[in-house]
């Protein structure tokens, strides 16, 4: 009896699309979002670079001069492992570390490990003549416990590095004492690099874990923000038509289902346009050498399938959440009411984002598999899984099938709520009333 009128759906969607795309808000947000993202990724690293490239003046105190010297050499060694004994090399290295933002050290050696020295060093700390000292007496070496006394001990990253270097210095000294050839030691002590190679579908791709993490987070947040934002936009659009009473005029020529469908498609097309604009900008910005988050995404070596999955899960997630939002918009009578209830509708989406890290680390844990098949969580969680690990095709197919089924049910229920609610003004209906609408509409 209620047939679908494609022309009307198209007309509604076109109006919704054009009216939104033409607004200043759309233009500003489309341009501003990448700028904000760029700011978030670039500004902090710029800050780190400009801030911590300082020099720390410290002292190594040990009765054993050779031990102290060995630790000093380790501390002065660059992270890349180059020897820093020669003055020229040291200078080069200083320049390099200044660029990468590492802390540089000036190290004194003090062989008088007495209380008098300690008091004197403490005085020099107070006088700001130096930044810290490491105490390596016989007891400290025997117990593998040493102290770093400094004015600023809050930079735990730097302290961690210091810890490793002291350990290496002591080890090197002790091995040398046992008669190992210093050159042989050099090759023994060289650190190991681990680079991860992702194997998928018979193809290897090399990725930097950190980069990939960042890129996944970026994509997921984009997915989440767009689904959320455009879902809420649908709700606003419905509410606007209700409060301006356009609804009644429209209902005299368009069926409620067509109206809702057109609205969701029109707003969804705006969302896709925006995402497309962002990704176009990102790929331009990701030109070789560009320092930006977009570049990181390129580096992360995503397959073309990631883009396909992004669009699929964006659309599915959007249709699911926006139809619920449309019903919500029809239920409420004011923006304030809408905001209170909105939270319950989008909660599953928020919960999925909370599980993001866990899913990234254990993409094939049975619990994660189950969670990612729940239609309300699928858009975010299954999408993450497809990026970080090969997901069996049947799981992807099942998740899409389940989502389509759920969307059909949700749209059916929401269209009924919409149909009745869209013309209601005044009091917000109670839950039993809503159930009645769904049954009898």
């Amino acid at each position: 009896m209620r047939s679908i009128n494609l022309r009307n759906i198209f007309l509604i969607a076109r109006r919704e699309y054009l009216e939104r795309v033409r607004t200043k808000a759309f233009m500003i947000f489309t341009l501003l979002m990448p700028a904000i993202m760029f700011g978030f990724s670039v500004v902090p690293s710029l800050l780190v670079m400009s801030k911590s490239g300082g020099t720390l003046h410290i002292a190594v105190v040990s009765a054993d001069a050779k031990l102290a010297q060995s630790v000093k050499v380790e501390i002065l060694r660059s992270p890349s492992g180059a020897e820093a004994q020669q003055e020229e090399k040291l200078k080069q290295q200083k320049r390099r570390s200044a660029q990468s933002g590492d802390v540089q050290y000036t190290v004194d050696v003090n062989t008088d490990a007495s209380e008098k020295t300690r008091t004197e060093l403490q005085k020099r700390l107070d006088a700001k003549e130096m930044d810290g000292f490491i105490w390596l007496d016989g007891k400290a070496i025997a117990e593998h416990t040493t102290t770093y006394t400094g004015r600023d001990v809050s930079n735990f990253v730097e302290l961690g590095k210091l810890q490793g270097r002291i350990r290496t210095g002591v080890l090197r000294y002790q091995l040398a004492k046992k008669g190992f050839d210093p050159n042989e030691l050099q090759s023994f002590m060289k650190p190991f690099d681990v680079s991860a190679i992702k194997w998928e579908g018979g193809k290897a791709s090399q990725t930097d874990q950190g980069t990939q993490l960042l890129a996944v987070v970026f994509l997921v947040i984009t997915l989440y923000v767009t689904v959320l934002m455009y879902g809420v936009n649908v709700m606003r659009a419905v509410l606007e038509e209700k409060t301006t009473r356009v609804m009644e005029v429209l209902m005299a020529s368009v069926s409620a289902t067509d109206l809702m469908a057109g609205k969701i498609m029109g707003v969804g097309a705006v969302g896709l346009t925006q995402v497309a604009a962002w990704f176009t900008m990102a790929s331009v910005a990701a030109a070789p050498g560009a320092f930006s988050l977009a570049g990181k995404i390129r580096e992360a070596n995503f397959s073309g399938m990631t883009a396909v999955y992004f669009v699929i899960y964006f659309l599915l997630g959007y249709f699911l959440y926006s139809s619920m939002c449309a019903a919500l918009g029809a239920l409420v009578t004011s923006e304030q009411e809408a905001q209170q209830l909105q939270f319950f509708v989008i909660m599953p989406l928020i919960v999925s984002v909370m599980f993001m890290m866990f899913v990234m680390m254990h993409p094939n844990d049975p619990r994660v598999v189950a969670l990612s098949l729940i239609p309300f969580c699928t858009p975010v969680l299954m999408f993450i899984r497809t990026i970080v690990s090969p997901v069996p095709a049947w799981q992807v197919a099942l998740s899409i099938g389940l989502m389509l089924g759920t969307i059909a049910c949700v749209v059916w229920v929401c269209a009924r709520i919409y149909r009745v609610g869209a013309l209601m003004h005044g009091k917000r209906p109670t839950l039993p009333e809503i159930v009645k609408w769904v049954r009898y509409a």
Partner: protein
Amino acid sequence: MNTLELMNTLELKNVCKAYDKFVAVDDLSFNIAPGTMFGLLGPNGAGKTSTIRMMIGITMPDSGEVRMFGEPFHRGQLNRVGYLPEERGLYPKMKVIEQLTWFGELHGLSRSESKRRSQEWGERLDIAQAFQKKTNELSKGMQQKIQFIATLLHEPDFIIMDEPFSGLDPLNARLLEDELLRLRKLGRTILFSTHRMDQVEKLCDSICLINQGKGVLQGDLRQIKSRYGRDTVQIALEGSPDASFIGNSALVKSMESYEGYIQVKLAQGADSQQLLRSITDRSRVNKFELMEPSLEEIFIEVVGKTIA
């Protein structure tokens, strides 16, 4: 073609609609003949809007039947219907001309045709100068005109207007009134829903008065008026004599004095000519006029009765 002309534009048969326990429309039936103006009257909350919504499929009746253009109602007929709701509904931020064009398209017109007709209407109603503005920049009366145009762009055969003249100054109200009269001449059927009895009296051929969801009075307006009989008489006497003797007459049910004349209601079955003779016996009569009951009086009488 001719058989279609003879068919009623709209037929409601025993239509009922209840929301929860509240009965909005209760066993309502009426017909609207083609090419007529029909007044749907009733006090606030009588069920006028509920009735209209069921006519055009916004809501479904719980029971009863709606027939339009001679067949059971279906959505395909909506392109032949123009509906102006009581509460105006326009997109506030949309340009007027774009809005009108779009509404025309929704009713099945092509884009260019819709635009052409909007322009035509705009000039006829003297509002084309506002077409490039956003809707929320217009005055209420102007918005009303725009809404009026949006309702009529697709040349509907059946026009439904819920309080079409509210918010308009007399000049503009007259303008729209003339348009509606012109459309009736072209054979369109027009349904009015209003409280303004003077307009109904002036424009409508037949009416249905509803109260508490029930049809309490309906039919041809002139017949109804004559059915309610000419029992009101305005009398002006020469000079200003004491007129209380008229009020005391057995022929008179009640009497009210106004500046320069008195108005009496005849007792049931009383002959007005007998009253005239009895007055001329005592005084000179300058005016003795049998008044038709105004629709307002009928409205108050009928609705008052059903409430009591």
